[in-house]
C-alpha cells in the first residue's frame, strides 16, 4: 500500500517535469526564432511588415462581411483580393531580393522591385475596375 502511493507520487513528478520541459522547449524555440529573425536584413523585414499589413487588412474585411452580409459581393471580392494579391507580390519580391536564394543570384534587386511596382499597378487597375 505504501509502495503504490510512492509509485503514484513518482508518476506525478514525472508528468510535471514533462510539462515543464515542454513549456521550456516551446519558449526556447520561440526565443531561437526571434533571434534568428533579428538577423535578417532590414529590407526583408520591411517586406515582411508590408505583407503582415496586407493580410491584416484582408482579415478585417472578411470580418466585416461576416457581420453585414456579402451584398455587393464584387466589392468584397475586389477588396480582399487586392490585399491578398499585393501580399503575394510582396512574397515574390522577397524571394527575388533575398541574397541567400541561389536561384535569383543574377537578378538585380532593382529589377525585382520594378516588377513588383508594375504588377501592383496592373493589379490595382483591375481591382478598381471590379470595385464598382
Amino acid at each position: 500500500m505504501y509502495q503504490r502511493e510512492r509509485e503514484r507520487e513518482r508518476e506525478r513528478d514525472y508528468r510535471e517535469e514533462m510539462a515543464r520541459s515542454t513549456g521550456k522547449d516551446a519558449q526556447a524555440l520561440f526565443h531561437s526564432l526571434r533571434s534568428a529573425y533579428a538577423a535578417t536584413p532590414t529590407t526583408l523585414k520591411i517586406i515582411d511588415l508590408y505583407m503582415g499589413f496586407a493580410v491584416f487588412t484582408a482579415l478585417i474585411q472578411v470580418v466585416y462581411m461576416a457581420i453585414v452580409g456579402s451584398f455587393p459581393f464584387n466589392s468584397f471580392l475586389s477588396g480582399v483580393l487586392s490585399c491578398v494579391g499585393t501580399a503575394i507580390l510582396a512574397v515574390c519580391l522577397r524571394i527575388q531580393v533575398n541574397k541567400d536564394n541561389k536561384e535569383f543570384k543574377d537578378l538585380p534587386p532593382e529589377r525585382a522591385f520594378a516588377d513588383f511596382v508594375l504588377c501592383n499597378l496592373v493589379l490595382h487597375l483591375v481591382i478598381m475596375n471590379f470595385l464598382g
Partner: protein
Amino acid sequence: MARSPLRFLVLILAISICHAAGIFHPISDSHRSAALDLFKPVDGSFASLEEAYEALRTFEVLGIEKTAELSKAICKSVLGTLESSSSTPKDLFHALGVNGILKCSSKEETFEDQTSKTDLHLSDAEGTFRSIKALSQSDGRWRYSSNNPESSTFAAGIALEALSGVVSLASSEIDQFMIGAVKNDIVKLFDSIEKYDDGTFYFDEKLVNMREQQGPLATTSSVVRGLTAFSSVITESLNLPGDKILGIAKFFLGIGIPGDTKNFFDQVDLLACLENNRQVKVNTVLGSHAPPLTVTLVRAFSSSARDNSIIENQELKFDPQDAVYFLDDLPASFDVGEYIFVFKMLVQDSEQQTVYATGTLTQVPIYVTGLIKIENAKIAVLDSDLGSVETQKKLDLAGESTVSVSANHLQKLRLSFQMSTPLGNAFKPHQAFLRLRHETKVEHTFVVGSSGKKFEITLDFLGLVEKFFYLSGRYDIQLTVGDAVMENSLLREIGYVELDLPEPPENASRPPPQPVDPYTRYGPKAEITHIFRAPEKRPPEELSLAFLVLTILPLFGFIIGLLRLGVNLKNFPTSAVPATFAVIFHLGIAAVLLLYVLFWLKLDLFTTLKTLCFLGVFLMVVGHRTLSHLASASAKLKSA
C-alpha cells in the same frame, strides 16, 4: 302575272342593263361625260400637241362639241409648230393631225415648205416600203429598228400605219407582191392574238424586257390602227377572221370607262377605226343603228336543267320605234328561276354580210323573278314525350305583328310554313334560317328543312340545353327566307320565346365572349403599377464607417512598424539629376494611384486606359533611369 315576263326581254337588247358576263355595253353618255372630265385643258390649252391631238380625236369620235376658245388656242400652237423650222417629226405629225380635225386656216405655202423639209423622202417610195418591211419578223411582229433585235406587236402596228402612209402617198409605185407579203404578215400577227375566256381577244407583248412596256390596250389599239390604215389604202379587202375582230371589240367595250387619258384615247380611237370599217355587232360599238337583222332565240333553258329547252327557235320581232327586238309571246310555263337564253343574229341583207361581223351564238343568263307565296305559317310549343301541342300560334309573316311563347327544357319548339311559286310549283330558297338571340347577345342559327312545299323546323330543347350554354331567359326569334329570284324575301323578327333551362353544372362550357364595342378597344386601359425590385438591405451607416476606420488602421500600424525598424532614406540619390528622376518616379507612381481613384469615382475605363498609357510609358522611362542609377551605385559599392 303570266304576261309580265314578256316585256323584260325588251330590256336586254336595247342597252343591256343585265348584270351578267358576256354583255358588253356600247359607248354611251357616261363615256362622253367621262371624256369631258379627263381631257380637261389646263389654262385654256393642252400641255403638248400630243395631248391636244388625243383630246380632239376623242371629242370628234364621241361627238362632243369643243369650245371656241379652246379651238383658237390650239390652232395658234399648231400654226406655230408648223411654221417653225425646228419642230421634230413627231410634233409635226401631231400638229397635222390636229389641223385635220380643227381645220385651222393657214397659208398653203407653209405646208409645202414643211413637207419638203420633213424626213419623208417620197422619191424612193419603194425603197422606204422595203426598208420598213425588212424590219418585220416571221411571227408577224416588227422590230423597232435595224439595230435593235427586240420585236414587239406595238411596233407592228406602227409599221403598218407607216406602210399605209407610204402607199397612200405613192401608191402606183408599190409592187403588188410586196402588199401581198404584208398581208401574210398580218395573218401571222393574228395568230399571236390572245384571248380571255369570255370571248374577248387582245394583243399583248410576249417579252417583258422592253424598256417601255406597252399594255394590251395600247398594243391592240396600235395594231388595229395600223390594220385599218392599211386596209383603207389597198385595193382588195383584207380577210380578217370576223370572230377575232368581234373579240377585240368586246375587249375594248369590256373595259368600261378607263381613267387614264391615254387609255381612253386608245379605246375610243380603236372603236372609231372598227366603226369606220363597219365590223361590229347588234348595236355598233359606238351606239349607231344596226342594219336590218333577224334575231333568233335559238334556245332557252333553265340553268338547272340544261337539256330541256323550254323555247326553241323563236324569231324576235323588230319594233322600229324603239329599235329593239322583242319576243312576242312567252309560254305560260315560265316559272320564276334562273334561265339561259341563247341568241343568234343574222344580217338580212346578203350584201352587207361581208361588211358586218356578228357573233355566232350569244348566251345570256336571265333571272325571272316573282312573288313567292308564303302561307300557313305557325309556331307551336310541343311536349316532348307525347308530342301534343301545348300552345300554337299563327304567324303573319307578311305583316308586322310578333308573337310570344314560353317553353321549358322538356318541350320542343316547332315553326312551319309553306312556300310556292306563282305557278304553284315547289320552291326551294337559297336561304331559310331561324335564329334565336338571347338577351346577352348570344346567337344560335338553325336551317329550316323542307320537303316539297312544306318547310318545318323543330327545336328539341332537351338536346339543345348544352348548346345554349344553359342560358335561360328571353330569346328573340328571327326568320330569314331569301333567294335571288324571290321578290319578297324576308328577314323578320317574329317574336320571342321565354326559355326556362336548368342550372348549369360545374363543368359546363361558358358562352363565347361577345364582340366588344370596337370603340372601347382604343380607350384608356387599366393603369399598370410597376413593382420594382426591393433594394437589398444595407448595413447601418455607423457600422460601415467604423469598419472603414478599422481598415485604415493597419496602414498606420505599417508605418509605425517601419519607423521602429529604423528605415531611412540614406540611399536616396543626392546629386541633382538622379534626385530629380527619383522624385519624378515617386510622383509618377502617386499620379497613377490618383488616376485609379479618379477612375473609381467618375472616370470610365477608356479614358483611364488612355491616360494610363501615357503615364505608364512616362513612368517606365523615369523608373528605368532611377533604378538603373541605383543599381549602378550599388554595383560600384560592391566592387569597391
